[in-house]
Structure formats: structure tokens, C-alpha cells
């Protein structure tokens, strides 16, 4: 049995320094290092978290040094400084503490009066040299404890640290300084204490690192556990498993075990200690944390809200990853000083399992929630500024036309996504394909796709079936051949026949007039407008100067006009000069409308809302009409468009948002000119008769406002997202809804919203937020 009664002065001591003869003092690696360094006259400093055993280490080291003939004295700076103290009082207090600590004989007041002409720090320096070093003839060590209390003074203490460094440097010239050594202890970082790297004593000193107790060092703690069990080592092991050797917690848990544990059966040691830790340390720890330890850690992290957010985020990373690489930046050092985390090899880890349980994810998230709004309350105006700058930049890029291509592509994509519509029942396409062309004798046809006899026969058959309008999308810039006066007469007299012409749109193109047989009112130009990527997205209704056409209206408008004549709808003009059919006003676009950048917006241009169907209308080949192989009902009351789709006539190479595929060589992507014209006629008719939406866009100022608004939304999302992953998730949701919203608006209302710039500003201003949170408020000294 290893039962033994404890000696009366054997006790565990959580909190406060251990007396020199304390039997529960644990000697660590740092003890030997500190003692040896001081014995060798090295300046030392121990800057570490609270309750890691600094003061106990100091007391034991002093005792050991004294036995080697070294004279020691400690100065507790917390016993000198106060909030109102002046430098003169503070340095004077240090002198008094040195007098009392080294038992010097000196009439302090008189000495001070005699040195009245010196500055406070010079007096201390003078005192050390002329009094201290002369009266004490042995080696001497001055321990300065609670060094961080200088941070509470209302003046800077840089002079004090410079003085210490000077004492070191004087060793070279004045040998008596070789007897004097300083040791500094406290819970602060060197850079908190003194800014100037050339004056700091910390880079000439020996840094002593304090670690947790290791199991093989802990035998002094074992004795108090002997009467509670067979195997005190197992108990101790279980304790260290929880505390990680943290001195305060280890002493406290040993004490709890000695007081609260009945006799522990073999093999149950860790169960019993687990229970003890849960009931006495972790549950309701705020009430049970006496003497204060966990609350000190908590307060140190939560004390300063601007830095707290950073510390909590850092701690969060450690909790999430288990370990993060240690750095020497102020935040990392501050977190280490709290005691919560400790450096292990080159990484930072949570010191022990108790901290893990107490400062858990729930605790962390709660305080992140509390701290984040206040931490970010300052940069809310910054956020607005950033958002506006982003908006300005994107609007600028846009006004330079750099986004035009992306915007057009996204428009095309939206167009392709629309659900299919039925073919337009008001139209019929009569197509002239390769076979039709070849079946006409070359002697009759010449180079044209349709010979005069064929045309005559076609028109005869068509007129019998009473269409509302016939559009002849075939160039006929030659007179009717002799012998076909019947045709010529028909062309001149037909009330509903419209032929194409082509106006001159550049110097090298003199245009193509309509056949002379056509009246001016029976012709219309077939010019189309290509965007920079050679895609047709616009429709031309009329132009100011259509020479050599005899009419300013386009072919498609003429056909629509013919069709609508029977509905008693004719072309009108609004006071603004827009063309109006029935109640529908066709507002023209401007040179910077929608995605466009500085296009030529002359004439009556509108955006072309293609009918979303594979075939714009029913089609029938020329041959079938000529062969009478058709139902006359498909002609009655319709607009008939006659045009060629034969490859050899090169009117089949047009690109629309639908066929603009990645591979432009694909055959099926081609669309014939007559089909484009059909789409245009269809858009006009369905707008007037079916109220099908026309495509429109915001005015320029509205677009700028829209883009700016998304910049602000992006900023807000970034601002409200504490973690990067939240930001990703929220941005994803916003981007998706923006995409859907723009698509639905286009589908239902015909609105072409600037989707691409909105997305760019949103993402950009949102992602800039993390950059701003990195530009931190510097820690207040």
C-alpha cells in the first residue's frame, strides 16, 4: 500500500507564487535554463501567458542564485505604478524598491535632492552606478516582475528599457556592470513594451520559454495523491491529459483530486478524473473558476473589440484545423499571451483539453456574433465608398465598350434559353431551294433564282388563294423580259405585292433598286444591321435616306403594314417621332442602349425579338406551289414571303442569337435572309396583334444606377458574411437569383437588363470586404 499521511505543509497551490520551500514545486527545463543563464550574467526575459508559473520560477531561481552568492532583488512593477503616477514618482519608486530590496543604506530624500538636476531616468541610472554597484560588491540580479503593468501608465516607459539596455552595453567600458544582470518577466510582447528595435533590451537578452509540466517532471505532485489510490502515476497521467501540463490547472486538478476523490480503484483513474474535470471545472465554469483563471483568459481575448475579432478568427482557424503555423505577428503573439494556445514545434495548438471544452465552438460562435457587428461598425462607410468605387470602375469599363461582347453573349444565351413558341400562323414561307432553281430552264431564268414564267405562275396561283401580302425577297434589278407583259402588268397592279430593294449603306455599295415595275409604295429595303460579332440583333423599320429605294420603309415594315391594313391599322408617328402601329409604339434604340457601345443608331432601329421556334412559320417549296400540290388555306389571309434558301445564292449565311454557335462552320446554324425577314415581320405583327413584348432596355442613367445598386448589395453581402464560406454561399444565391431574375424579365417583359456588369460589380465589391478587414486598427498602446 502506498498510503501515507501528508505532511502539514504539503499542499497544492493553484494561483499565486509558490514559496521557495514548497514541496509541490515542479522543476522544469526552463528552471535550469533560467538559472544557468543568469549565473552566466546573461540578461533574460520571460514573456509568457499568465499563471504559467513565472513568479514561482523567479522565487526559486532567486533562492538558488542566493545560495551561489549572487545578490538578488525583485521589483514588482504593479506595486509602483498607478494611473496618475508621474515619471518622477515612478523612477523614484524603483529607486526606493532597490534600496529596500538590496538593503542599501542611503538617505534617499537627500540623495534625490542632491540629484535634482537630473531627469528621472538619469537619476535611476546614476543610482545604479554610484550607489547600487558600489554598495553591493557581489554579482547581482534585478528581477523585474509584472513588466506589463507599464502598459497601464499614462506615460511611455521606453526610457526605462533603454536604460536596461545601456547597462548591458556599458559592460564593455565599465567592468562593474558585468556584475549586474536583469531579468524581465511579464505577460506582454516585446513590441507592446517598446517600439524602437534599436533601443529594446529584448534582442540582447535570452528568451526563456515556459512550457507545460511534463509527466517525468511531475513527481513532486504525486505525493499528495498517494492516499487516494494505488497508482498515483495513473492519476497524474490522467490529470496531465486534461491540463496539458498547464501549471495552474495541474495544481488545481491535483488539489481537487486530493480533496474530492475517494479511493480510486485500479484502472478507473482516468474515468474518475474525467468526471472530476466535468463537474468541477467545465460545467458552469464561470461560477466555479476560483481562483480566477479561465475568466482571465476569456477577458484577455474579449477585452478590446477591434482586436478581439481578429483573435477570435485566429482561434477559429486553430479549432477548425487543429493547428496553424505559428507566426510572430502581433495577433499571433497576443493570442499566445492569453494562454489559450501554445506553440508546439512550429504550430499553434489549443493548450489543453479543458480549454477545448470551455472555449468550444459554441462559445466561439457566440462571441464572434457579439463582436463582429461592433468590429465592423467603423468600416460601414468604407464599405459604401468601396462599393461606389467599384461601381464607378465598372461603369467606366462599360462606357469604354469593354464589356459589350460579354453582354451580347449573355443576351444570346438568355435568348436561347427561352421556351419554344409555335410557328407564326400569319406567315408562309415559299422557299426556293437548289432543286427549284435547277428545275427552271436556264434560258428563262438567267442568273436569277426565279424565272419570269415561274414567277408569273406563282403569283397567279397565290392570288387565287387571296393572301394579305406577298413579299418578294428576291433581287430583280432587271426588267421583265419581253413577252411577259402579263407579269409586268401584274407586278404593277398588284395591291399587296412588295419587292425588296437595297439602299446604299456605304461608299462602295451603290445599292440595288427595286424592279422598275414596282410602284414606290410596293417596295421596301431589305438592309439588315450587323453587330460587331456579325450577329443580327436589331431590326430596321425605316431610314431617312434609302436611295436608290423609292421608299424609306423597310421590307418587313411594308409587309406588316399590308397585313395590318385589313385590321384598319396604319403607320402613325408619335410626337417623339417614333413609329406607331395600332397602340404599339416602336421606340428606337440609341447608340449606347443596352449592351451596345457607340453603334450607329440612325434610322428607326428596334431590337429584334426573334420568335423562339425552330421554324418561323410554315414552309412550302416553290415546286409544290407550281405543281399545285398545296392546300390553298395555308395561303389565305397570310403574309407570303418568297425567298431563296439555295446555297448558291449566298443569302443563307446570317447569324442570329440562335445559330451563333461556337463553331461557325456548322451547316445547320445558317439561316436564310428570307427567314430573318420573316422573323422581323412576325415580331411586328405579334407585337401589335398578340401584345408580344418588344425588347427594351433601361435608359443610360438607370443602367448606371442599377449597376451601382448591385455594387452596394455586393458590399452588404460581403459585410454581413463573417466567414468566407458564408460569403461564397450567399453570393451564389444572389448570383443565381440575379440570373433567373434577368432571364424572367427578358422572357415576360422583354427587358434586357445589364446582367454581366451587375454580376461583376456584385462579386467585386463583395470580395473586397475581406481585404478591408485585414487593414486593421493598430493595437492601442
Amino acid at each position, binding site marked *: 500500500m502506498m498510503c501515507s499521511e501528508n505532511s502539514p*505543509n504539503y499542499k497544492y497551490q493553484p*494561483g*499565486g*507564487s509558490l*514559496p*521557495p520551500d514548497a514541496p509541490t514545486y515542479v522543476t522544469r527545463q526552463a528552471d535550469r535554463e533560467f538559472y544557468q543563464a543568469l549565473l552566466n550574467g546573461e540578461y533574460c526575459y520571460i514573456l509568457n501567458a*499568465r*499563471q504559467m508559473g513565472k*513568479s514561482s520560477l523567479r*522565487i526559486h531561481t*532567486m*533562492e538558488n542564485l542566493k545560495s551561489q552568492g549572487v545578490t538578488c532583488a*525583485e521589483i*514588482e512593477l*504593479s*506595486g*509602483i*505604478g*498607478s*494611473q*496618475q*503616477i*508621474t515619471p*518622477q*514618482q*515612478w523612477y*523614484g*519608486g524603483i*529607486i*526606493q*524598491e532597490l534600496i*529596500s*530590496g538590496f538593503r542599501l543604506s542611503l538617505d*534617499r*530624500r537627500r540623495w*534625490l535632492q542632491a540629484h535634482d538636476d537630473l531627469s528621472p531616468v538619469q537619476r535611476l541610472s546614476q543610482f545604479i552606478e554610484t550607489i547600487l554597484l558600489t554598495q553591493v560588491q557581489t554579482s547581482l540580479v534585478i528581477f523585474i*516582475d*509584472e513588466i*506589463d*503593468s507599464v*502598459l*497601464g501608465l499614462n506615460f511611455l516607459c521606453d526610457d526605462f528599457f533603454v536604460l536596461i539596455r545601456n547597462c548591458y552595453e556599458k559592460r564593455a567600458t565599465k567592468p562593474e556592470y558585468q556584475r549586474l544582470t536583469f531579468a524581465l518577466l511579464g*505577460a*506582454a510582447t516585446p513590441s507592446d513594451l517598446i517600439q524602437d528595435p534599436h533601443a529594446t533590451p529584448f534582442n540582447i537578452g535570452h528568451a526563456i520559454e515556459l512550457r507545460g509540466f511534463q509527466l517525468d517532471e511531475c513527481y513532486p505532485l504525486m505525493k499528495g495523491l498517494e492516499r487516494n489510490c494505488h497508482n498515483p502515476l495513473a492519476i497524474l497521467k490522467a490529470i496531465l491529459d486534461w491540463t496539458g501540463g498547464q501549471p495552474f490547472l495541474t495544481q488545481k486538478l491535483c488539489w481537487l483530486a486530493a480533496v474530492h476523490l475517494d479511493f480510486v480503484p485500479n484502472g478507473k483513474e482516468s474515468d474518475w478524473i474525467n468526471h472530476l474535470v466535468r*463537474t468541477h471545472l467545465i*460545467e*458552469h*465554469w*464561470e*461560477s466555479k473558476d*476560483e*481562483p*480566477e*483563471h479561465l*475568466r*482571465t483568459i476569456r*477577458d*484577455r481575448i474579449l*477585452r478590446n473589440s477591434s482586436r478581439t475579432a481578429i483573435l477570435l478568427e485566429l482561434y477559429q482557424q486553430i479549432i477548425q484545423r487543429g493547428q496553424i503555423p505559428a507566426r510572430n505577428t502581433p495577433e499571433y503573439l497576443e493570442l499566445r499571451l492569453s494562454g489559450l494556445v501554445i506553440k508546439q514545434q512550429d504550430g499553434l495548438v489549443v493548450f489543453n483539453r479543458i480549454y477545448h471544452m470551455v472555449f468550444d465552438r459554441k462559445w466561439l460562435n457566440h462571441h464572434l456574433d457579439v463582436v463582429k457587428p461592433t468590429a465592423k461598425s467603423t468600416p460601414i462607410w468604407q464599405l459604401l465608398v468601396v462599393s461606389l468605387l467599384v461601381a464607378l470602375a465598372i461603369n467606366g469599363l462599360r462606357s469604354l465598350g469593354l464589356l459589350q461582347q460579354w453582354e451580347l453573349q449573355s443576351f444570346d444565351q438568355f435568348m436561347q434559353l427561352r421556351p419554344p413558341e409555335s410557328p407564326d400562323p400569319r406567315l408562309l414561307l415559299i422557299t426556293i431551294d437548289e432543286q427549284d432553281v435547277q428545275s427552271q430552264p436556264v434560258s428563262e431564268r438567267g442568273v436569277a433564282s426565279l424565272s419570269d414564267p415561274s414567277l408569273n405562275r406563282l403569283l397567279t396561283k397565290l392570288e387565287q388563294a387571296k393572301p394579305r401580302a406577298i413579299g418578294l425577297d428576291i433581287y430583280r434589278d432587271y426588267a421583265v423580259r419581253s413577252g411577259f407583259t402579263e407579269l409586268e402588268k401584274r407586278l404593277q397592279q398588284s395591291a399587296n405585292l412588295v419587292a425588296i430593294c437595297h439602299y446604299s449603306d456605304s461608299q462602295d455599295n451603290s445599292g440595288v433598286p427595286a424592279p422598275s415595275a414596282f410602284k414606290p409604295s410596293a417596295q421596301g429595303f431589305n438592309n439588315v444591321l450587323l453587330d460587331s460579332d456579325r450577329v443580327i440583333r436589331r431590326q430596321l423599320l425605316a431610314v431617312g435616306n434609302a436611295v436608290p429605294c423609292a421608299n424609306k420603309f423597310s421590307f418587313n415594315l411594308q409587309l406588316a403594314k399590308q397585313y395590318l391594313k385589313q385590321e384598319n391599322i396604319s403607320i402613325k408617328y408619335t410626337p417623339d417621332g417614333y413609329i406607331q402601329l395600332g397602340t404599339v409604339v416602336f421606340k428606337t434604340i440609341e447608340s449606347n442602349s443596352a449592351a451596345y457601345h457607340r453603334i450607329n443608331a440612325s434610322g428607326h432601329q428596334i431590337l429584334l425579338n426573334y420568335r423562339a421556334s425552330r421554324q418561323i412559320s410554315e414552309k412550302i417549296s416553290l415546286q409544290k406551289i407550281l405543281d399545285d400540290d398545296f392546300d390553298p388555306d395555308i395561303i389565305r389571309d397570310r403574309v407570303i414571303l418568297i425567298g431563296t434558301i439555295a446555297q448558291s445564292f449566298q443569302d443563307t449565311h446570317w447569324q442570329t442569337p440562335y445559330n451563333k454557335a461556337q463553331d461557325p462552320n456548322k451547316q445547320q446554324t445558317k439561316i436564310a435572309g428570307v427567314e430573318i425577314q420573316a422573323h422581323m415581320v412576325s415580331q411586328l405583327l405579334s407585337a401589335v396583334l398578340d401584345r408580344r413584348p418588344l425588347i427594351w432596355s433601361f435608359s443610360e442613367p438607370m443602367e448606371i444606377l442599377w449597376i451601382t445598386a448591385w455594387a452596394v448589395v455586393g458590399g452588404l453581402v460581403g459585410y454581413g458574411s463573417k466567414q468566407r464560406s458564408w460569403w461564397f454561399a450567399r453570393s451564389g444565391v444572389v448570383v443565381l437569383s440575379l440570373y433567373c431574375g434577368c432571364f424572367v424579365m427578358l422572357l415576360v417583359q422583354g427587358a434586357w437588363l445589364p446582367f454581366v456588369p451587375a454580376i461583376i460589380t456584385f462579386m467585386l465589391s463583395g470580395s473586397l470586404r475581406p481585404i478591408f478587414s485585414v487593414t486593421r486598427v493598430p493595437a492601442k498602446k
Partner: protein
Amino acid sequence: MPNFDFKEAVKVANQALQSTENRHLSDVEIMILEGAWNRLEYDQIAAQQQYATSYISQDVAPKLWKLLSEALGEKVKKSNFREALKRRWENQPLTSSHEPISSTSISNRATLHLESNQTEFYLDRPPIESICGDTLLQPGALIRIKAPKLMGKTMLINQVLRVINQNYDWRSVNLSLELADRRTHLTDLDRFLRWFCLNLSRELNLPNCIDDYWDEAGMGSKVSCTTYVEDYLLNQDDRPLILCLDNVDLLFPHPEVYEDFFGLLRSWYEKARSRANWKKLRLVISHSTDVYIRLNINQSPFNVGLPIELPEFTAEQVQKLAQHYSLDWSLPQVVNLMEWVGGHPYLLEQAFSYLKGRAADAIGQLIQEAPSDVGIYSNHLREYWSNLQQYTELADALKQIVNATEPLPLAPVLTHQLYSLGLIVVTSAGAAPRCQLYRQYFQSRLGAS
């Protein structure tokens, strides 16, 4: 009739102030009177005590003359106060001239009900007394007693001192901060430390030598205080010195004083680890937990020494307490009362002193009226109530607790604060009202949920 000396003059001035202002002269005022008595100029008076001259001549002194003018009913100045006080001294009846001066008179006022009834009787709460006694035998010991108010902290200190004084010939000082003037002493570190040292020497029956050791300009008041204690008070005698500081919580509203003072105490504690003189010092600090403050994080927290928390009385202890009031109660009777007030020393004593000499069935009425405004606890409860009204968050939390039938887990901070106030008990399942009395009273005050 004694000579009219300065001591008599202070007495007269104190009486006059007592009747008009209901207070006594402060240390600095006495210092000015003494200086003026000796026909010193203000700058000399100020220099003597390391005060700023302007503070004395422009702030304290004019106010003092104005006060004395009102108290004595005639215009008083530095030049004529001596004669004015003498006239009053000659005219007053002899009987009232024996009032003790300064702080001692306040100590009488400050005596708690708890003690005045019970100075002789102390109910042992083993093992706390022996733990405290054993600890104080250690060199440089420090004990911190903390409990909600009216739990018997002061009585414990008195008892521990009594036992030590019976067994050892030690020196001891028992100083309550109730004796300090809240406005003048507790708000300024320099004045507080002077007051502190003055009272230490007075309690130890040593002449006041503060001026010999005090050098505020040269080394600040903290080191001055340390020097006074080390070179004068501790150096006097080889016997250990027990210094009990009671009601330290009075300092809590003044963090500017509290933090520095506790930093000083902590440095003394560290000195006592290795310096012979300081090993003689044994500190006992007691404070109520009703108010909580945060220490300056640039100093170590005051977590040194042995913490003592006062638990409630057990049923056996309550039975003994009843016997002291000549109530021969059986354990079931005791348990019955404890269901209402728990083991709360003050509540129990109130009950027993009410029941003493009354009929045995008086307890029924007592319990019935207890949670109301006419019961014997009405003052005690009202005090809690007015306190709580300032903290709606705490009041809301308490409302939930008193209306719950099971212990309620609440936010740790709130739980801790209510626990510190002494209103709840905390178990692993959550918080519950401390006793039935509190539950009923606060249910009626805060309403059912």
C-alpha cells in the same frame, strides 16, 4: 476644564459639522486646521503633506471655511477660526464634548445588525475556521473571503482573530472600509492610501509617523505606503501582523483606486515569499460578491491566496442556532423553516429573534407574511427588488427562474451575476431560486411567466 488645545478644537468643529452636515472633518481638513492653528501658510501646509498648493488653497480650504461658517453661525476665516471655535467650546455643555473623533464614531454607526445582536455568539462552520487559522500560521499568508452580503463574513473574521489572539501574542488590525469616507477617501488613491496607513498605525496603537516615510512627490503613494508598512509597521516588532480588510467591495465602484490598491496588495504578497520582514504580514480580505468588477488586464488578476466561500448553514447548525435563541426545535421543525429560508444566516437569525418568546404557532404567521411587504424580511427583500429594477436583464432571467418548476439553464453570465447576488443556487442542471421565500416574493413582484 481642560485647556483649549488643537484636539479640543477639532472636537468642537466635528460636533458643529455633525449637526449641520451630518459628517466629520476629513483628514485633509484636519490637516489644514492644524496648519492654520500653527499659523502656517497654505503652501507650507501643502508641502508638508505633499498636496498641491492650489488644491489646498483654492479648493479644500475655502470649502472648509464656508462649512465652518455655516456650522458656527458666524463668518469664519483662516485668521479667526481659532477664536470662533474657542467661543463655541466655552459655551457648550460639557457632556457632549466626549464624542470620539473621526473614524471611530463612524465605526459605531457602521456596526451591522448581525453583529450587534450576536457579538458573543458565534456559530462554528467547520472546517472553515480551522482552515483560515491554519493558513494564517503560514508566513505571508493571504485569505480572501467572499460571499453574498449578510452571510457572516465579518463574524468569521472576528472569530478567526479571536481564536488567534487567544493562542498567540500576535498583532492584528481589523479595518473595515466602511470607516472610510466614501467621497473623499475612496475616490482618490493617494488619499485612500494615507487614510489606510493612518488607520493601521492607529489600530496598532502606534504614533502616526506617516510624514517621516511618505514621499509622494519622490516615489508615489504606493511605494510610500509600502515603505511605511515595511520600515515602520513591520519593522517595529518581530511578531506576525494580521491585517484584515473588511468590506473591500466598497472600493469596487472606484476602479481607479481598486486596481492600483490590489496591485499593491499583490506586490506585498510577492514580497512575502522571499523577504523576512514581509513574511510577518498575514492578509485577510473580505468582500461581498454583490458587485463585480473587472481588473485591469495589464496586471495579474487578484487570484492569489486562499479563497474562502461561505456556505449556507446545515440543518444541525441551524438547530444549534435555534438553541441559542432558547428555541428547542426538533430537526423536522428546523427543516420546515429551512424550506422557506434555506440555510441563510441572516434570514434564519431574523426568524429566530422574531420567534423568540412568541407562541410556538407564530411560525405559521411568519411564513405566511414572509414574502409580503409586511413580513420580517420586507426591508431585505425591498433592497434586492430596488437593486434588480436597475438591471432588467437580470430581472427577466430571475423571472424565468422563479417561475420554472425545474432548474433552468441560463446564459452563464446572468447565472453568475444572480448567484453573486445570492438569489439563486446553481447545480449542473441549471439555476433555481435560492429559497422558497425568494421564489414567492419575486414571483409576486415579477409576475408569472
